[in-house]
């Protein structure tokens, strides 16, 4: 029912006044409508806040998570729906098109959020030699490439099969993991190390407990039975991740995924679940977050290859990752399985082969190799001591190094660019390629020392430049998960061994120093990607770095200095990629949610059907709610307790709506005078408005003041374009203890709400100012200007997008009233903020004047 119509009917009929009961019922009904209205306003605020957070994320230089984007979008949409519900409660059946528009907008937002469809077709298992035919979508890039290495180049790779991404999708679906994972990520605070670790362990637990669907079990068992690797009996397996996006340019997931080595074939399933669970290892989740990759898009194929019980193994780079211009193949090699080189665990041999032709062994550095990894006779791998006779021996002969270099150069040519090749020699000396991926290149211009002439401050020199550059910070040694949790932004990460598990810290580390390790390790490549200077393999001298000591790490100059030394300016490190899948999704979502197409409420196109974005819907609902609530309020025959015009020397453009007991009774006539008002916060506000006269033009007559107050939040440039509208009046909603002031002009909206009672716990003062259309710089300046004073009043101020929210709670009544009074003053005296923001001198002048005025305001009088 339309309340206004109801009133009109009621009072148009005749002179007899409504009975007390009827008046009370109407008042209660009005109060209920007012609740709907307030609820709509609060939903409006929440929707716009969530929208502003999305826009902030878009403008920011970090990559938000998909869970964040989804959460904020949902908050926006759900609050828009609340607005629609409340508007419908205020005006039933008046805007039938709204729900349709909402549905359409919701659908387009959902589409923008939608993830790439997981493969729903194709085989669950592919033989490795046919992995390339499945493409990267099914086989994952790593196995697709390995399949091509064998098929197209004739290089030896371990025989094996690929468990495809479709199998992954099947496992996830079979066990209902999608929603559970999204939920766990949603509620986690991934910036916090402890929360990240806990969430990841929960998600990984889900995988470890998952059931392998029977059709997958059968396909894998058949595939394994068909493997008959000559010379590799008894068959043991290496399960290696092959994840989507793993080898994307600039997004190397180095070391974030688990491999399971030397697995008994009958126990493939357990190992498989362990490998796919590593899609949610802390380094992988935090890496995706940094790089803006969507968790929903993460899918993993797994290579299930015959284990090569290697005599020697390692990594070959076809270019120097720190100096891509320098020709040659860099080989890192160790005894046993290549794991030691890949993990960067122990010192290893280094060879450099110049490309030729013919290739020549240009340099070799043989390390003392005390340990190696070997296959355990039963299962898994274990470190063993290297016999003394082998320790000082090169792990590769000259001819083996050359053979490897030639293979690596072939791979570089075939795949059009420098490659990072993992390799192994079996006991008979046969070379196998285990993995091959594009080599992320360092930046040549960052080469070399950045610190010079500081020899007296030198703490240590040596090691390997794993990632160039220099930075200062306090030393933090990290050995355990507990250390990692304590790690603070901007510290220098010092480790004994550069293990992949410390990768999540690199996003916050100033620099990395490792006693062990080299440029080929996983942590090293993550450091390069994050642009964090890293100096590894500095030797036992590194242990002398005292925890908490301020040092400067010059990774390029291979030195560490005491104190914070001046460094040449470096461009800010790009810690997130500008164009990532989450960012793309965010941009699409914002395009569907944020633009405002409905501008002029007077325009005939201001309709529910014209709402094309969530922002349009909020604008429409807000406008209509204000109209529904108040636009007929000035009509005659309005009953007691409804809107009355404020009379102060003359009728003003302010209306008072008494919700309960805010006005002295009985009242007659259509006006209400300040002295009739019993609302304490109103009087405080009113005193603040009037106590110190406004000095600038226009002159302050009663009518002029109304316009002053009216314009207080207006942007003149916009206000002129918008016709005066009944809905743009200013309303005080009052009770004895409550004040709600709504003021809206064009795009600008401010509200003040105060609840002031004798009981401090119930008290609240909140002020919201939002101004939409000025240029962002001025908008920010204006908000910052206001923020300073509001904070000075003791209010908690937050700025979100173009909205300023200030709040104070649970203060004693006198303090609340003083605050309301000051807000009255500020609303009056900051009316030309936009204008003065253009001139720094005038800003200063006004700042000083406002500060001294605020200090001189007297305490609010008792009512």
């Amino acid at each position, binding site marked *: 029912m339309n309340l206004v119509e109801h009133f009109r009917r009621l009072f148009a009929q005749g002179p007899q006044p409504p009975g007390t009961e009827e008046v009370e019922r109407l008042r209660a009904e009005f109060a209920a409508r007012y*609740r709907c209205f307030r*609820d709509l306003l609060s939903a409006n605020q929440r929707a716009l806040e969530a929208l502003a957070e999305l826009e902030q994320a878009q403008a920011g230089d970090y990559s938000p998570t998909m869970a964040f984007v989804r959460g904020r979008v*949902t*908050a926006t949409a*759900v609050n828009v*729906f609340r607005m629609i519900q409340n508007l419908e409660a205020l005006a039933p059946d008046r805007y039938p098109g709204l729900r349709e528009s909402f549905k359409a907008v919701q659908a387009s937002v959902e589409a923008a959020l939608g993830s790439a469809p997981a493969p729903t077709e194709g085989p669950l298992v592919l033989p490795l030699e046919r992995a390339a035919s499945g493409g990267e979508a099914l086989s994952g890039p790593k196995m697709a490439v390995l399949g091509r290495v064998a098929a197209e180049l004739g290089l030896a790779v371990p025989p094996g099969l690929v468990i495809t991404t479709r199998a992954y999708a099947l496992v996830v679906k079979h066990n209902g993991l999608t*929603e559970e994972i999204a939920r766990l990520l949603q509620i986690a605070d991934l910036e916090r190390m402890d929360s990240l670790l806990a969430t990841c362990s929960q998600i990984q637990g889900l995988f470890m407990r998952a059931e392998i669907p029977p059709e997958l079990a059968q396909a894998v068992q058949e595939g394994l039975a068909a493997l008959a690797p000559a010379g590799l009996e008894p068959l043991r397996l290496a399960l290696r991740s092959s994840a989507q996006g793993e080898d994307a340019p600039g997004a190397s997931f180095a070391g974030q995924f688990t491999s399971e080595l030397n697995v008994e074939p009958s126990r493939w399933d357990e190992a498989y679940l362990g490998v796919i669970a590593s899609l949610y290892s802390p380094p992988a989740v935090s890496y995706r977050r940094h790089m803006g990759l969507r968790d929903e898009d993460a899918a993993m194929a797994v290579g299930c290859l015959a284990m090569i019980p290697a005599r020697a193994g390692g990594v070959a780079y076809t270019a120097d990752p720190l100096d891509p211009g320098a020709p040659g193949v860099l080989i890192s090699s160790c005894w046993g399985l290549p794991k030691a080189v890949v993990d960067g665990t122990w010192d290893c041999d280094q060879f450099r082969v110049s490309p030729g032709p013919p290739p020549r062994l240009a340099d070799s550095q043989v390390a003392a190799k005390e340990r190696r990894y070997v296959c355990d006779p039963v299962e898994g791998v274990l470190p063993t001591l290297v016999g003394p006779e082998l320790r000082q021996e090169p792990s590769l002969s000259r001819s083996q190094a050359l053979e490897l270099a030639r293979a690596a150069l072939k791979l570089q040519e075939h795949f059009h660019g420098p490659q990072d090749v993992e390799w192994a020699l079996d006991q008979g000396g046969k070379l196998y390629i285990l993995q091959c991926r594009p080599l992320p290149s360092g930046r040549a211009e960052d080469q070399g020392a950045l610190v010079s002439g500081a020899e007296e401050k030198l703490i240590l020199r040596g090691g390997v430049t794993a990632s160039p550059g220099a930075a200062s910070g306090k030393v933090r040694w990290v050995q355990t998960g507990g250390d990692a949790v304590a790690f603070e932004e901007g510290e220098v990460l010092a480790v004994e061994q550069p293990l992949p598990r410390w990768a999540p810290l690199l996003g916050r580390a100033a620099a990395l120093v490792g006693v062990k390790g080299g440029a080929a390790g996983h942590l090293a490549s993550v450091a390069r990607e994050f642009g964090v200077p890293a100096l590894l393999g500095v030797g036992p001298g590194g242990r002398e770095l005292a925890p908490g000591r301020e040092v400067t790490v010059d990774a390029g100059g291979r030195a560490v200095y005491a104190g914070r030394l001046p460094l040449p300016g470096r461009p800010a490190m790009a810690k997130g990629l500008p164009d990532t899948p989450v960012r793309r999704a965010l941009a699409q979502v914002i395009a569907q949610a944020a633009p405002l197409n409905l501008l002029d409420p007077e325009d005939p196109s201001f309709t529910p059907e014209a709402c094309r974005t969530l922002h349009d819907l909020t604008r429409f609902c807000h406008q209509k709610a204000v109209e529904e609530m108040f636009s007929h309020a000035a009509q005659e025959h309005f009953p007691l307790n409804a809107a009355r015009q404020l009379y102060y020397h003359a009728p003003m453009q302010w209306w008072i709506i008494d919700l309960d007991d805010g006005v002295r009774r009985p009242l007659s006539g259509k006006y209400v005078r300040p002295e009739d008002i019993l609302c304490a916060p109103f009087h405080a506000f009113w005193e603040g408005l009037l106590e110190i006269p406004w000095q600038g033009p226009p002159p302050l007559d009663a009518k002029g003041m109304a316009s002053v107050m009216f314009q207080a939040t207006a942007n003149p440039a916009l206000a002129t374009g918008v016709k005066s509208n009944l809905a743009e009046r200013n309303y005080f909603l009052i009770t004895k203890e409550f004040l709600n002031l709504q003021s809206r002009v064009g795009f600008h909206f401010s509200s003040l709400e105060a609840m002031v009672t004798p009981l401090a716990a119930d008290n609240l003062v909140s002020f919201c100012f939002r101004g939409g259309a000025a240029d962002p710089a001025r908008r920010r300046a204006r908000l910052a200007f206001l923020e300073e004073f509001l904070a000075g009043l003791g209010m908690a101020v937050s700025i979100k997008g173009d909205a300023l929210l200030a709040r104070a709670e649970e203060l004693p009544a006198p303090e609340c009233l003083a605050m309301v009074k000051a807000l009255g003053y500020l609303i009056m005296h900051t009316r030309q903020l936009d204008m003065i923001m253009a001139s720094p001198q005038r800003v200063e002048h006004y700042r000083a004047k406002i500060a001294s005025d605020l200090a001189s305001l007297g305490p609010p009088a008792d009512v």
Partner: protein
Amino acid sequence: MSPFKVLVVDDERDFLESLVRRLQRRSVDAAGVTSGEAALEHLKVHKADVVVLDVKMPGMNGIEALRHIKQLYPEVEVILLTGHASVESGVEGLALEAFDYLIKPVKLDELIERIMEAFDRRKVVGDLAGSPPPKQG
């Protein structure tokens, strides 16, 4: 203690216990149960003014529980709290007259604020249904 009673329903026991404890520390009269079924059982015996309801739970999910609660106890206000944000479930919940749909993690202050608003609305709606008019402030 608060003048209103709150029932929290969440299958995650850790979250449930810590939330109930934190609400109680803030003088909110709160109790907790771990399923939709248990919530209905609880409401048979105990009064609640506001129910804070997890959406995704095994067995009877939050939306179903909401439907039952609103059928049996229309005066009880329900706030949905979810870790799995979805516009669809949010809209469905609000259409079933949930008071609000909040996304985890939610700040305790905000949750308490919403609980109080929900209680407020309940009061007003209850008053409209026949009891004396509200005394503001």
